[in-house]
């Protein structure tokens, strides 16, 4: 049995395996290559909300840059924004301020580092790895949305509504209050006696059983019904609050002019904000921490807003406001209702016209004011103003001055079609998207749950560069040391393993680039560790071959070495992979990076260390009569 097997073993690989290896090597090299080319300083210009760039904008931008004497390396218009590359950072910074002056609030002008990948590689979809915040510098915030407040606000919102419903049904109540703390929170509706309470319960049950759970307290002097929000409603409220805050953050981050911001939900109450390249964290925090509110005002139809803007003087009793796209409008000084009166806003479809609309609900006080105003102003326009307040610290002659900055934007102006009170619709919106945005803004200005920064990680640019340098230095030194050790210990076979190890490193980088994974410092550590551990497979194989050589002829020793070591290698790698998966599933940002590189490294090393080295060894020794192996 053994003898016959020995005759068959010639250690020749079929051609397709070589082809596979060559193909993978070429693909690996191609996709790893973009990482060699570095970055161009660039300015990214993206349109502000509801603004679209035209050919005119494009020529305007080009002309302005030419007039300023700033040589442009290349300018691309894609996916709705411009990416203009410059030769050096000096031009880049100048261009940013020039373009900011030109476009004003119509656009977000941000500094960016654009990968200088050559065209032929970009056409293949190859791009370099994305560097994490710890390598390129920037800010990472974790915001926590105060869900308790979100829920309390939801309760407070129903107080007026329940009072109204009971009044409509002519059931007399004593008081409606929010009682209890946290989980025991409930709306207590008190009645003067039991029969009234029963009647009240029936009314409440009919209108609110979808949102509330009911409990009655009958023993007290004034019997009461306790309404607590159903878990489903609470979950919805929290989801709303989170979504709303994410939306608010998006708008504010746009203002910061960050090229590739990340704003993501994490868990069910957290939001991650990553701002690469932002160094002034103080300002970032101020902008993110702004508070918003709303105002409803009548439009002053008599004056000409454009003339008022030119002269700077608004007609008596009115103020100049601007839409988000910069168009001026005159509004009356008197505020009808403000954000605190808004109970809810949701988008929907107008059943009569089929267009998109927003349903707005006001509280009792707001409803009364609205009724008084709309009664006399049917046919006139009413505008919604979105106001953002924040504190900005500015350094003037070495002294820090805190400035209150208020942004006022008109987000909508619509004709009042008839008199209304606490419930009305804003119709005639262009798209469901616009309706959704408006509803979100209305809610953001009215009932956003407060949020708080619970984690901050800022990496300065100098540290980022140091991290890159030190990271790569340690990879190279560690790698070379391993190469030397392997060549010394296993001679020719060690050299073959070194080729495989190099290929492994290239494939890891290629895979990371293809996945557009974020490379962090722990990620680099993962690569370094993989380099150290990847040789384990080859060590196992070569030690086994040496062992087998004592009992079998050379060809079968090579064969047996690979075969027998394989089980061990597979076992060992699967267990390491197991640990990597645990790391990934529990870890946050940087640890995830480590787990990803480690996992990729384990898989690719199996390929290069087993298939790769075997192919080369077979090529060298296969089907030949050999007396001695250089191992």
């Amino acid at each position, binding site marked *: 049995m053994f003898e016959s097997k020995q005759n068959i073993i010639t250690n020749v690989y079929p051609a397709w395996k070589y082809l596979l290896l060559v193909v993978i090597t070429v693909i690996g090299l191609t996709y790893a290559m973009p990482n060699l080319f570095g970055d161009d300083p660039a300015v990214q210009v993206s349109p502000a909300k509801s603004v679209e760039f035209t050919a005119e904008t494009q020529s305007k931008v080009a002309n302005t840059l030419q007039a300023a004497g700033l040589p442009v390396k290349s300018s691309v218009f894609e996916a709705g924004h411009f990416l203009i590359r410059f030769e050096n950072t000096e031009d880049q910074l100048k261009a940013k301020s020039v373009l900011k002056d030109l476009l004003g609030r119509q656009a977000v002008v941000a500094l960016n580092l654009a990968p200088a990948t050559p065209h032929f590689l970009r056409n293949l979809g190859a791009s370099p790895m994305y560097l994490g915040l710890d390598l390129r510098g920037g800010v990472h915030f974790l915001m*926590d949305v105060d869900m308790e407040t979100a829920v309390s606000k939801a309760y407070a919102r129903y107080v007026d509504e329940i009072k109204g419903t009971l009044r409509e049904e002519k059931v007399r109540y004593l008081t409606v209050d929010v009682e209890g703390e946290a989980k025991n929170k409930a709306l207590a509706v008190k009645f003067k006696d039991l029969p009234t309470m029963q009647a009240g319960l029936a009314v409440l049950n009919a209108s609110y059983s979808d949102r509330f759970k009911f409990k009655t307290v009958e023993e007290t002097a004034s019997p009461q019904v306790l309404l607590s929000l159903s878990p489903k409603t609470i979950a919805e409220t929290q989801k709303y609050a989170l979504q709303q805050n994410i939306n608010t953050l998006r708008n504010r981050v746009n203002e910061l002019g960050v090229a590739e911001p990340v704003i993501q939900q994490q868990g069910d109450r957290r939001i991650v904000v990553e701002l690469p390249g932002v160094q002034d964290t103080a300002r970032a925090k101020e902008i993110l921490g702004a508070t918003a509110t709303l105002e409803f005002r009548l439009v002053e139809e008599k004056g000409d807003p454009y003339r008022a803007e030119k002269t700077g003087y608004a007609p008596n009793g009115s103020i100049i406001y601007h839409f988000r796209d910069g168009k001026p409008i005159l509004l009356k000084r008197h505020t009808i209702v403000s954000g605190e009166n808004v109970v809810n806003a949701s988008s929907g479809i107008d059943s009569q016209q089929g267009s998109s609309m927003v349903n707005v609900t006001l509280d009792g006080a707001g409803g009364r004011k609205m009724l008084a105003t709309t009664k006399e102003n049917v046919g006139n326009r009413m505008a919604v103003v979105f106001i953002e307040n924040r504190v900005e610290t500015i350094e003037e002659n070495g002294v820090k001055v805190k400035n209150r900055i208020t942004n006022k934007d008109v987000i909508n102006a619509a004709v009042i079609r008839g008199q209304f009170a606490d419930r009305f619709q804003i119709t005639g919106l262009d798209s469901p998207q616009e309706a959704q945005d408006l509803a979100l803004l209305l809610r953001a200005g009215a009932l956003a749950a407060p949020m708080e920064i619970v984690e*901050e990680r800022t990496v300065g640019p100098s540290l980022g560069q140091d991290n890159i340098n030190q990271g790569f230095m340690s990879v190279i*030194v560690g790698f070379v040391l391993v190469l030397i050790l392997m060549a010394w210990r296993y001679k020719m076979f060690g050299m073959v393993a070194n080729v495989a190890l190099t290929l492994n490193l290239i494939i890891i980088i290629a895979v990371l680039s293809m996945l557009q994974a974020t490379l962090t410092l*722990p990620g680099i*550590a993962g690569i370094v560790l993989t380099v150290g551990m990847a040789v384990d497979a080859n060590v196992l194989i070569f030690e086994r071959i040496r062992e087998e050589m004592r009992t079998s002829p050379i060809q079968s020793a090579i064969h047996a070495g690979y075969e027998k070591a394989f089980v061990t290698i597979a076992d060992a790698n699967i267990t390491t992979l197991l640990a990597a998966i645990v790391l990934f599933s529990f870890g946050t940002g940087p640890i995830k990076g480590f787990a990803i590189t480690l996992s990729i490294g384990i898989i690719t090393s199996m390929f290069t260390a087993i298939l790769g080295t075997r192919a080369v060894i077979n090529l060298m020794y296969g089907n030949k009569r050999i007396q001695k192996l250089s191992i």
Partner: protein
Amino acid sequence: MSNEMHTTNINFMGQRHIALALSIVLIIASFAGLWLKGLNFGIDFTGGTLIELSYPQPVDLPKLRTDLSEAGFGSAIAQHFGSAEDVLIRIAPREGLNSAQLSNQVMDSLKAVSEDDITLRRVEFVGPQVGDELTEDGALAVLYALFGVLIYVALRFEWRFSVGSVTALIHDVILTVGVFAWTGMQFDLTVLAAILAVIGYSLNDTIVVFDRVRENFRVMRDGSPVQVTNIAVNQMLSRTIMTSLTTLLVLLALFFLGGEVIHGFAAALIVGVVVGTYSSTYVASAVALMLGVSKEDLMSAPKEEKDSEAAELELQRLFHEHEARLEAKAATKGKRLDDEDAEGIPR
């Protein structure tokens, strides 16, 4: 043949009682370190603010500390970080203080009293609540990893091996944490990641030895479990040394060149690799032996569920293979056979 080709014959398992005593002493020492000194937790776990600043010239720490306490940050801890020009300032979380703004205040007050051009290198702020969550998640992750290993090894090998490997892993984790307690090195999130990587590495090592023990049990006709294990450890010795060496080389590169931020991570892995290499021999195998692992356990617990007929065939095949190998050995190298006898491989 060259000297390298000899399998070493060190009686590892014979010294397992000494090793056991050593391990117990080390574990007690680790717990003592945890008890007496405790871990120097980073702000990832405690919450608080960390600010890394870079000055153009060496920093006078006592003066910096006075400046800080005059500015109202009396509880702040300031120390050099990597070089004399860099300082790390840690501020514990305080009730009622808007910690997110703290870094700006510290920066401002230091800039106010210093002529130098201070650069902000890094700010980390972790809320106390997030810190608690991370501690909990971290402990859970280690538990999940150990549990996963327990199941995987039990399925792939046998429960005694499984207990042995998990004991070894717990041993490694305790010792690594113990080193951190005694040295007072900071224990942060990256160190936790390193400990999980140590679990992966040490396990890798253990599995490789176990794999050989299993193979030897199948191939060798007699020999006590202690002898069989001893041979396996000896057979894998050069591999164990090589792999540990390559891994240690790159880790040393990381430790010395990777920068201050990655220091703790590299240190934890270096300790872990050394301890893990030791434990896969002396703890994992020794515990499996102590639990009475035997030839029969492994013969009847092959990788997949096989009916007895298939197992019988497998046994026969292995037997033939072994027989053939012995024949080949006798035919080609008569001299080597004697060598092997001297090395005490039972046949």
